[in-house]
């Protein structure tokens, strides 16, 4: 596992909050759902923070293409090309409730987060392109930046999860996430970091 950091110098996106949850850096952007749903294009509706950018869907809207990397088979809700990389987006897994800005960490679902990361791994493995994992809720958009421990745990337990779930050939991101979540919670550093860092609210710097 290696990391190639390319520091973005310009055009930082307007994330409203970010926090570390179980070894994953989460950046969230809150938006008005009525205003986002009124957008004419898919990117404006599902990715309000990237409205007006060059992101485009790889498949027709609503058509879920399968992506496979090894024994990991995923069908993300949408995959978009963005620059020289891809965006793996999930927006059908939420409960549809609005999330308050001050309570989003308390109501965060780790299983959904790990599923999104696993889906992005499948997309990146098949396309061999850098892929970002995104999740869109009722009124927030989240981008996941998984750490080393999370990536290694997901990548090295695909076969074990397949045997555990007694799947003959492939395992889904939901199964892999359910298999890996207890292991990640048992790691001493991750649970402590999730409770220790907390959020860094930047509402004052970002206009709504």
């Amino acid at each position: 596992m290696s990391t190639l950091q390319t520091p973005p110098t310009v055009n930082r996106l307007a994330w409203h909050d970010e926090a570390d949850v179980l070894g994953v850096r989460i950046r969230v952007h809150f938006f008005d759902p009525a205003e986002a749903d009124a957008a004419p294009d898919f990117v404006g509706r599902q990715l309000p923070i990237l409205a007006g950018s060059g992101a485009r869907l790889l498949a027709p809207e609503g058509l879920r293409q399968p992506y496979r990397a090894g024994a990991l088979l995923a069908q993300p809700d949408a995959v978009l090309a963005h620059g020289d990389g891809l965006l793996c987006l999930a927006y059908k897994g939420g409960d549809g409730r609005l999330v308050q800005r001050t309570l989003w960490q308390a109501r965060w679902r780790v299983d959904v987060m790990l599923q999104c990361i696993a889906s992005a791994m499948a997309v990146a493995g098949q396309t061999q392109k850098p892929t970002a994992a995104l999740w869109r809720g009722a009124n927030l958009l989240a981008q996941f930046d998984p750490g080393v421990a999370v990536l290694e745990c997901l990548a090295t337990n695909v076969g074990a999860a397949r045997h555990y779930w007694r799947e003959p050939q492939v395992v889904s991101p939901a199964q892999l996430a359910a298999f890996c979540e207890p292991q990640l919670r048992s790691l001493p550093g991750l649970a402590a970091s999730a409770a220790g860092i907390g959020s860094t609210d930047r509402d004052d710097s970002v206009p709504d």
Partner: protein
Amino acid sequence: MIHVQIASQLTSEGVHGVRWVLLEAAEPPPAGPAAEVGAPALPAFAAAGTAPAAEASPEPVGVDSSADSLRLRLQKVLVVALGLGAALWTAAVQIGLPGRAAAAAPGEAASAPADATVPAAPPASAPALDPPATPAPDPAVGPSQAPASAAPPAVRAPAAQTPTAAPVAPPGPPAAPASGGLPRLTASL
């Protein structure tokens, strides 16, 4: 191994800050039961119990479950044996051993057929209900048979000898019965 790149930064132009990891390659599908023998085992953490909590529930019945059932059966037998032993010990303390009772009243065997006409008293209450020193004669049964049949074996001998042995009995505090039960509250006059 499959090369996987996950972007850590997102800008309006594209993705940046790539983290890469090697993903396990797909294994060939099992051809049959023989392929399961060569399948890699679960990692140590899964076998140690740190795997998901639902792992223990779908496990089939195996060697561990048969050992547990055998241990449970042995525990059941042990509990039953302890209960039976405690019941026998309690009966021996309260009533007396059957062999000692027969040895204490050897002459009662001859009057056993006549006892069938007399309603038997409950054995547990017999030591507490000590027969009176001068029992009333039953007209249907002989004077020496009625108290003997109602009394337990341990106290039959003194009760049967009451009409003849009462005048020669030495005065004094009543002695406890030989069976170790409650002391007699009545004395022969």
